[in-house]
């Protein structure tokens, strides 16, 4: 692996007696897309929050872009662009006001990103009219698109995108995937992607980490996970389902053995 954006060592988090993250050694290379996968409750959100410095690890350490977040959580503030799982925008403000707030919070002059914003709006079919409506009046897909723009426009070297295409129509999901690829391939950004949408993972992920009950059970290139968990079918979705430990034979029953 090349130079690392994130490196954790024996990262562990307990919530009282509940073990949420169990001694994980995460390695996210710079300039790549790393998909953090796992069934619900596997510890993905807890891991992400530890990277952001919002949760203090119970033990172990995590270094993000050279900063030991476990020791200096303040130093990482404002250094990571984030798209949370739920739209983290203000529903009473307009999309433009929300975007301006994020720009001002990150000390980014509007003029500096005006052209990029225009491109984002055009690509994601966000009209001027839409930008000046209250955020609450937007459709789910439009809200998600604006939230994505709010994360991408921060121009951070490291982006954490939690379910970026959730609730989007096929076209918008495709455009967002293209933008993510552009950000990584053309601008050299690093993306930590958490998603349950197989098409996102298949198209985007360079590396995968699979969390199960707080443990990182697999970490490696996308091809490696396929060889490890679905050597026969060579199907990425099968590999993930197998890695999660789900019963693929049930799916086979219902699909008439098509899988």
């Amino acid at each position, binding site marked *: 692996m090349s130079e690392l954006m994130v490196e954790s060592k024996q990262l562990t988090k307990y919530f009282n007696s509940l073990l949420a993250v169990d001694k994980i050694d995460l390695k996210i290379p710079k300039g790549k897309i790393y998909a953090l996968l796992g069934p619900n409750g596997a510890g993905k959100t807890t891991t992400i929050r530890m990277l*952001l410095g*919002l949760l203090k690890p119970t033990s172990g350490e995590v270094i993000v872009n050279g900063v030991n977040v476990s020791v200096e959580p303040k130093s990482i*503030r404002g250094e990571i662009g984030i798209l*949370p799982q739920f739209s983290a925008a203000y529903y009473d*403000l307009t999309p433009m*006001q929300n975007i301006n*707030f994020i720009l001002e919070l990150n000390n980014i002059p509007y003029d500096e990103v005006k052209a990029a914003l225009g491109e984002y709006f055009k690509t994601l079919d966000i009209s001027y009219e839409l930008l000046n409506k209250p955020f609450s009046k937007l459709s789910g897909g439009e809200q998600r698109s604006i939230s994505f723009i709010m994360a991408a426009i*921060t121009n951070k070297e490291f982006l954490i995108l939690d379910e970026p295409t959730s609730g989007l129509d096929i076209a918008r999901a495709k455009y967002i995937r293209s933008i993510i690829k552009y950000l990584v391939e053309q601008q050299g950004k690093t993306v930590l992607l958490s998603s349950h949408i197989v098409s996102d993972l298949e198209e985007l992920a360079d590396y995968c980490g699979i969390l199960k009950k707080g443990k990182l059970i697999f970490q490696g290139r996308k091809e490696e996970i396929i060889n490890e968990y679905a050597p026969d079918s060579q199907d990425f979705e099968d590999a993930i389902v197998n890695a999660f430990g789900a019963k693929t034979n049930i799916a086979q029953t219902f699909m008439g053995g098509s899988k």
Partner: protein
Amino acid sequence: MKKEKEKSKQLRALLKKDLRLLFRKRVAIFVFGGPFIMMFLLIGLPSLFSSQQTMVLLICSDDQLYSGVNIGNAVVDNITNYFSVDPSIEVQPVLNFSAVKGTENFGIYIPSNFSFLIISETDTPSYFEVDATQSLFSESIFNTIYAITHNVIATVLANRTLPVIQTIEEPPTSLPEEQLLGPKAAAIAMPLSYMIFLLIALNSGSYSNIGFAREKRMRTMEVLLSYTKKHNQLVISKTITALVASLGSTLSYVLGIVAATSLTGGGSEGIFAIFGLNMQLLNVWDIIVVVIFGVLALLISTLITMAIDSNITREASERLSPLLSIGLAMFFYFVAMTNPLGASTSLVINPFYWCYRLALLAISGKFNFEILIYLALIIAIIGLLIFFATRGIQKEKSLYLE
């Protein structure tokens, strides 16, 4: 240097966002319009159908002059003159002690040997106060009467002549220490205590529209905490916004009262009467001092609410957090009104009392060590509350409402 600039820009961005959320249509109507309508309806409409309630102070002096001086009559004249400018109190002379005793109002009776005892200094003179109504405000009235009486006596003893009838400026030095604050402080004490209570009680609801519980419910805490370099700026921004909301709604209350009193022709004098402010004794600077310390009390109330709100992760925090603040304000008010000018030991732990006491000391011009102590306490509690509120939002469970 660059980083500091960046941090102050972040505070500006947070403040802009919080103020925008405050001034959105629905909230603005609730916070700024509601109080006006409420006060206009509560005070304006009833006042159209009823006359202003006045308290009656019955007064009688049987004092037989001694050595050509009648101190009892001088006291009566001074009291009558003092309250003549106060529309809420009507002084009525009566003929004898039984008429005073028979009153359902307040009463003062000065016996026949009053001058004799004072001038001959053979005994301590006494006069009688009747507080038939047991009104909550009676103590401040009698404190005033007590101050007037002693001033008259002190003047007579010094000059051996009747004092000129005038407003009492300074209390006698023989008064107990807690009453040395002077007539201005006496005039402002009761109005100030219930104004502080009212400010806190009336504004407690407006916080829920802009507080951290709302951010948690909207799931915006994660982004705020990730991008903001100094988390106490989140608290400071919310505090300033809450103060703007509180002051705006207070102004709305006041305008509602002014509009309501204008209906009855009272105008700005009407509002002073409603708040019990004797503008013959007080000047603009006194009112400014009152406003400053009222705002300080509001600031502390906001920070108490915020510290609790940010430390309780459950949805109930929105409702629970103003309760402690109102509870403290109620405790302060009910203890303060039993002895408005006294330095109450049971209130020394109450930050609203510190603001109140500071205001009284400032108005009476007593810039002493006590002022420094209360100032230090207020600065310390503000710092502590900001610290606890910041620590609260950094707690692991503070990201979402559970």
